[in-house]
């Protein structure tokens, strides 16, 4: 490590104010703090001190995303080869083949996600002369996991520029955003290019390329929510005739955006987040409670397939991923503990409500964005209620003292 430290110390003067590469200091600082914990010391005021800085925190989140990422890769290959087998173009395939196929599909998305996002961050950092924030480290990993695998890369790039600039940079960068930038990227894509973000063709790799190039027409790649929404008669949605079991939904052998399919992989990530204390257990728990209550009520109502799906709603669509990785974003979520309960509960409750009554598969994304906007309001009323309660307690004490 010594030679690295020496190298950094040797180049540092060039980047400090007055040096010839002064303008590039943010770039230098980013690379330096990637290897070494920064040596900045708080000089005034009182602050909570902790050995863990934001960069280590972000690393935990990215590690927690790994199970979902790896399963997503396998899922891409799984559906691709299942289709080939079903169509008789191939006899069998191995786990490794499926995984590598998914890796090949996902790698360009990840590269574009990080390349474009960090590019935007660099431009803003140099323009405003502040450091490059680490926030994008997590956002850049979240984005590939919440888009369909066949999304054209240029659309992704446009959406990321929009999401990072409008969602984050104009509010002042990492820690200042009111909305979750990754979700904003997805919302932008959904409204701007709906043909690539919904329907039954986008969730399985190469399904859009019909005819000679890719797979023949007529394959079924609709998500479970998509099939339920169109009122499929079968009690259970199917892939090529065979029904998905609850186990399939739990482990993740269902079509969907890359990282959202496997509830199991997401739960492993959730455990990592909770054990390291990065994400709030209150939001996750209350979200599950809210969604369970709402799906239970709909199950009793039971007017259509979506309602009859009951508590299995928790396993499908973006619910688990959204609740674990998006709703718990410490910047855009509610800050007070009571607020977190309300915030999480509403996310769960409204997600299922919108999903069922509106037939809107993207409900989770939109509800989290909505609650992001309402989070400060929730906090405000929680704090005011607390102030009122304490005032009343003091008044009561004074009254008691006077009357004695």
């Amino acid at each position, binding site marked *: 490590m010594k030679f690295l430290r020496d190298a950094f110390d040797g180049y540092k003067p060039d980047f400090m104010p007055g040096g010839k590469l002064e303008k590039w200091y943010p770039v230098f600082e980013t690379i330096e703090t990637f290897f070494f914990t920064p040596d900045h010391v708080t000089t005034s005021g009182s602050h909570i001190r902790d050995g863990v800085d934001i960069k280590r925190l972000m690393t935990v989140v990215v590690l927690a995303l790994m199970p979902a990422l790896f399963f997503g890769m396998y899922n891409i290959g799984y559906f691709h080869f299942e289709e080939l087998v079903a169509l008789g173009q191939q006899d069998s395939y191995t786990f490794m083949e499926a995984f590598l196929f998914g890796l090949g599909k996902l790698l360009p998305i990840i590269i574009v996600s990080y390349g474009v996002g960090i590019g935007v961050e660099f431009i803003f950092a140099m323009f405003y002369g502040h450091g490059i924030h680490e926030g994008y480290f997590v956002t850049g990993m979240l984005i590939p996991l919440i888009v369909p695998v066949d999304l*054209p890369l*240029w*659309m992704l790039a*446009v959406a990321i520029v929009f999401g990072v600039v*409008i969602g984050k940079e*104009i509010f002042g960068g990492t820690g200042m955003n009111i909305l979750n930038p990754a979700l904003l990227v997805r919302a*932008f894509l959904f*409204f*701007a*290019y*709906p*043909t*690539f973000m919904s329907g039954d063709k986008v969730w399985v790799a190469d399904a859009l390329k019909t005819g000679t190039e890719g797979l023949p027409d007529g394959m079924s790649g609709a998500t479970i929510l998509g099939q339920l929404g169109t009122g499929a008669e079968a009690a259970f949605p199917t892939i090529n005739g065979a029904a998905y079991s609850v186990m399939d939904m739990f482990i993740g052998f269902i079509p969907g955006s890359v990282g959202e399919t496997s509830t199991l992989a997401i739960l492993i990530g959730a455990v990592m987040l909770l054990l390291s204390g990065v994400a709030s257990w209150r939001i996750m728990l209350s979200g599950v409670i809210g969604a369970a209550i709402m799906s239970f009520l709909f199950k009793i109502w039971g007017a259509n397939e979506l309602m009859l799906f009951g508590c299995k709603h928790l396993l499908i669509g973006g619910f688990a991923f959204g609740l674990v990785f998006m709703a718990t974003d410490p910047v855009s979520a509610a800050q007070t503990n009571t607020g977190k309960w309300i915030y999480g509960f509403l996310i769960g409750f409204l997600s299922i409500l919108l999903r069922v009554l509106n037939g809107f598969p993207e409900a989770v994304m939109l509800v989290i964005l909505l609650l992001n906007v309402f989070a400060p309001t929730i906090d405000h009323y929680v704090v005011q209620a607390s102030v009122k309660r304490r005032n009343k307690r003091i008044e009561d004490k004074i009254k008691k003292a006077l009357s004695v």
Partner: protein
Amino acid sequence: MSEEKEGLFSKKNRQLLVNPLDDNNPITVQVLGICSALAITVKLEPAIVMSLSVLFVLSAGNVIISLMRNIIPSRIRIIVQLVVVASLVILVDQVLKAYLFDVSKQLSVFVGLIITNCIVMGRFEAFALGNTPWKSFLDGIGNSAGYGLVLVIVAFFRELLGSGALFGQQIIPDSFYEAGYMNNGMMLLPPMALIVVGIVIWVQRARNTNLVETN
């Protein structure tokens, strides 16, 4: 009276004309007339027709109110202003229906809503009631030009990116579409108009630092 000696295009009068284009823009600085800016900027043509309509209503209305400013009892001035602007809007509406029926259908209710456009009432109240007709005329032209400028900028980007066209003529070549390019559907939705207006405000304030509020 000193006003008589002042030239028609003295520095002060020119300020009336130029100020609302940038430093005191009705949309980006005073944040008035936003609803119509969001509703009719999907395409350039209706945006321009709308700007011209507002230009006529505001400049003519300003002159009329200014001429009557000494005889309007202040208690009923809002009613008088409404009558003036309503008559002018009906005039515009009828002309559009007669000569530009397609655009008139696109603008639909928004021509009628010029009556409630905050910019119009705002200029009547704030300027025409206290200034001479010529000055009020310049003020009306300036403010509606500032309004139209923002409308045209927003409509330009929304039509170009949302429909790939300008004035209804396809601009983005077919080869782009064949290569996989797609029009941005979100540009056609009102939220994107709000965001484009926001970006215009951002660019304007980055350039013109006088407008940045310190707090």
